[in-house]
């Protein structure tokens, strides 16, 4: 009997139209938990580095996290894993909503797609009945529209649908997979889905998800729910509103956008408008939001209402969350009404809300600077907002210049040449980042930006305050009920962190402290991605209800896997290393681990080197950022060590432990 998980994956061969239900190995649950962890292992085993993103041999894995479908509040993430066309690395992107629990109720933990369908199809999973169905009539349809049409034709209003729009079909490198309330956007995973000729995955499940130790598990769930209520009533003082509470950034509720609009950059991540926000704009934007927002909405089994239904005048209703509220507005130097309107089209087309606006602003910058000319934009309207709609159309349909832009700023700049590379200035690992340009280097953020393999800063940061509080007394008050820390020393790190003087950025926190802090934050995100937990209740906010101390109990009581803090940390490090190993094998190394040159004005090359060296050593990686043989064998990743030695990625470590010293035999360091 398997608990929390179902113990079954679906293997779908799209080339042959063959579908199989395959039992999984419970030992993998102990070692890699589930979700991202077990998916990383499947990618390692079945997608060697020779496999290109658009090869039929690339896999596209939809995984429900280990605890999805259990009563654990907010545990609803689908983790989508594949090789990204944009970064050419392993991409993993998460979406909330309702799909993952539904998949569990249907009796599966993962759906693994391989091959390429000859015609456009969708997968319909209804408990034991699983079939590929023709989707040629849905070609070109919007992602949200597609979901509604499929529910109608199947007469299954309760079916959950994740679909791509035109962008995915046309293999736009930053195409998303949309699921109504939520989307998996980063890394261009929607393009891989389009390449496989898979329009949608549709799920309806009416079976049970079982719990190993029911009373213990409910006790933990009740504690979490109580703490959420407590935190809702006690926002953290001294930080900006979106960091004070729980949930994904509460962008649908918060009207005061002074912080975002004055700190984030406008246009192609260029202009900081320090005096932008004023009363008139506040009034206007509040009216816009209130007139278009019909309701605040949640994901499955979560009270946080981070999303909203938006009805722009004259356009169909759609659902929105987080910061896509402002990305189009700011890229186009426009207002909120424009932003909420174009986001409707962008959601139907299915594009990433960070990359798409930047790509469009990048194109217009190239035009302004004569690198592209009017001839590249035939028929483009004169007005700024019209231009963004025109560009969006051309990108998602890969028409004219849109065909080049659809590859993202990094690849487009290469193709265009003539100095265009200088304008693709906001990328890490070939992927567009948050439009943020700051002054003084922050050592914690330096390491997170450089080494993150989730490509998005919001998916690495969270547990440690972004900046020191002004006075020691504020810091003392903050650490008082900070029980989430992995160790008491983190409180001291924070207490001693001053806005100015010796103990301030960039030299404080010191490199070893930075390693500790980043590792903690990253660990939280990786565990969320294996369990299917929403970052909004765990890794993203300060003082979350889920943390390193209660997670082992959730796993033991829920999945019946014997777990403690030590074992959990070891498991996270194991599959985190495996993610890196997948990317190492694809050529990623220290040379790629760089924040954009202009991310901070004040840079410190020597300090940055020391930070990176210290962090790599802390992680058990060599100075190139490659996991050492010793590290790999310690985690029981002998198969990776052997592969690296065979490929010449590593040479034999003198002090590597003997091969059979696998951690499952109780030999963890």
């Amino acid at each position, binding site marked *: 009997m398997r608990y929390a998980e179902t113990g079954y994956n679906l293997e779908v061969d799209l080339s042959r139209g063959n579908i199989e239900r395959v039992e999984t190995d419970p030992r993998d649950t102990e070692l890699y938990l589930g979700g991202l962890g077990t998916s990383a292992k499947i990618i390692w085993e079945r997608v060697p580095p020779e496999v290109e993103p658009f090869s039929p041999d690339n896999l596209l894995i939809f995984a429900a996290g280990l605890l999805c479908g259990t*009563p654990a*509040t907010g545990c609803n993430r689908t983790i989508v894993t594949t090789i990204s066309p944009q970064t050419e690395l392993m991409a993993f992107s998460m979406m909330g909503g309702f799909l993952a629990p539904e998949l569990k*109720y249907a009796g599966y933990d993962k759906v693994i797609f391989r091959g390429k369908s000859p015609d456009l199809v969708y997968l319909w999973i209804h408990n034991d009945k699983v079939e590929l169905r023709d989707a040629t009539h849905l070609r070109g349809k919007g992602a949200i529209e597609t979901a509604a049409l499929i529910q109608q034709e199947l007469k299954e209003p309760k079916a959950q649908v994740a679909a791509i729009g035109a962008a995915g079909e046309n293999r736009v490198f930053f195409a998303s997979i949309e699921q109504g309330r939520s989307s998996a956007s980063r890394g261009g995973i929607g393009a891989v889905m389009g390449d496989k000729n898979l329009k949608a995955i549709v799920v309806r499940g009416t*079976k049970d998800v079982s*719990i190993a130790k*029911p009373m213990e598990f409910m006790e933990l769930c009740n504690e979490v729910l109580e703490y959420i209520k407590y935190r809702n009533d006690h926002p953290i003082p001294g930080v900006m509103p979106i960091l004070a509470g729980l949930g994904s950034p509460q962008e649908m509720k918060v009207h005061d956008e002074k912080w975002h609009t004055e700190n984030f950059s406008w246009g192609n991540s260029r202009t900081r408008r320090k005096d932008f926000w004023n009363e008139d704009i506040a009034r206007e934007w509040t009216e816009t939001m209130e007139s278009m927002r019909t309701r605040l909405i949640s994901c499955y089994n979560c009270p946080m209402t981070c999303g909203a239904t938006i009805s722009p005048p004259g356009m169909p209703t759609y*659902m929105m969350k987080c910061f896509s509220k402002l990305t189009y507005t700011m890229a186009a130097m426009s207002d909120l009404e424009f932003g909420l309107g174009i986001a409707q089209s962008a959601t139907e087309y299915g594009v990433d809300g960070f990359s798409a606006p930047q790509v469009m602003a990048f194109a217009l910058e190239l035009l302004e600077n004569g690198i592209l000319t009017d001839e590249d934009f035939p028929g483009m309207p004169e007005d700024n907002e019209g231009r963004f709609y025109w560009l969006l159309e051309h990108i998602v349909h890969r028409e004219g210049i849109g065909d080049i832009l659809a590859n993202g700023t990094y690849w487009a700049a290469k193709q265009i040449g003539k100095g265009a590379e200088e304008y693709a200035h906001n990328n890490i690992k070939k992927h567009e980042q948050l439009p943020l340009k700051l002054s003084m280097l922050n050592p914690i953020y330096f390491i997170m930006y450089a080494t993150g393999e989730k490509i998005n800063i919001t998916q690495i940061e969270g547990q440690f305050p972004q900046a020191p509080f002004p006075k020691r007394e504020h810091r003392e008050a903050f650490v008082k009920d900070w029980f989430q820390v992995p160790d008491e020393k983190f409180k001291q790190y924070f207490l001693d962190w001053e806005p100015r003087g010796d103990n301030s950025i960039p030299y404080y926190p010191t490199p070893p402290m930075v390693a500790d802090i980043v590792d903690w934050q990253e660990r939280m995100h990786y565990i969320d991605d294996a369990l299917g937990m929403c970052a909004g209740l765990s890794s993203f906010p300060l003082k979350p209800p889920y943390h390193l101390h209660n997670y082992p109990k959730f796993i033991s009581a829920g999945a019946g896997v014997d777990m403690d803090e030590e074992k959990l940390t070891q498991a996270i490090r194991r599959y985190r290393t495996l993610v890196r190993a997948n990317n190492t094998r694809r050529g990623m190394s220290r040379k790629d681990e760089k924040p954009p040159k202009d991310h901070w004005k004040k840079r410190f090359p020597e300090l940055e080197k020391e930070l990176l060296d210290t962090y790599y050593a802390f992680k058990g990686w060599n100075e190139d950022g490659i996991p050492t043989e010793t590290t790999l064998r310690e985690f029981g990743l002998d198969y990776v060590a052997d592969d690296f030695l065979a490929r010449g990625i590593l040479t034999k470590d003198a002090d590597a432990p003997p091969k059979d010293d696998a951690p499952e035999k109780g030999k963890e360091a």
Partner: protein
Amino acid sequence: MPEEKKTKTVKTIKVDVDKCNGCRACEMICSAYHAAPKYSGNNPERSRVRVIREPLRDVYVPVYAGEYTPAECLGRDKYIIDGKEYDECAFCRASCPSRDLFKEPDSGLPLKCDMCEGEDEPLCVKWCIVDALTYEEREEEAEEDEKPEDIDVGIEALADKYGMDKIMDAVARMSQQKKD
């Protein structure tokens, strides 16, 4: 001598659809609470409250399972509230042959909300921390009438489906098998 007044406790769950965010925590916890053993699993399909949810039309209606009915209504209701049209029978609580709401997924037996007998507060209310569901209790004078047992309702439903004879046969056969 005046007859002693009987009272009954009226238990009300107030549903404020404006506050519902569609999370379905109510469905999840109801099914977990009624699992045997308690909390050993969950499956919203077994829940005695279901959220009729159509986000794009802004339809959010948590509906509670009421009485089982063997035959569907001939007349149907359709509501339009604030310009929003709700599906036929949207607000009806019956476990009724016209739809698959409020039936056990494997047996098809009817489900009915029991207000979480024995708990301080209905679980769906406890888990709806946004207060779309709130709970009230009051005493009212009343004549006590016999409530049919769950098992009676179940058998009645089976009888409607298969006929009494077939059920008697099946019960006889099963008890024979148990003895063997």
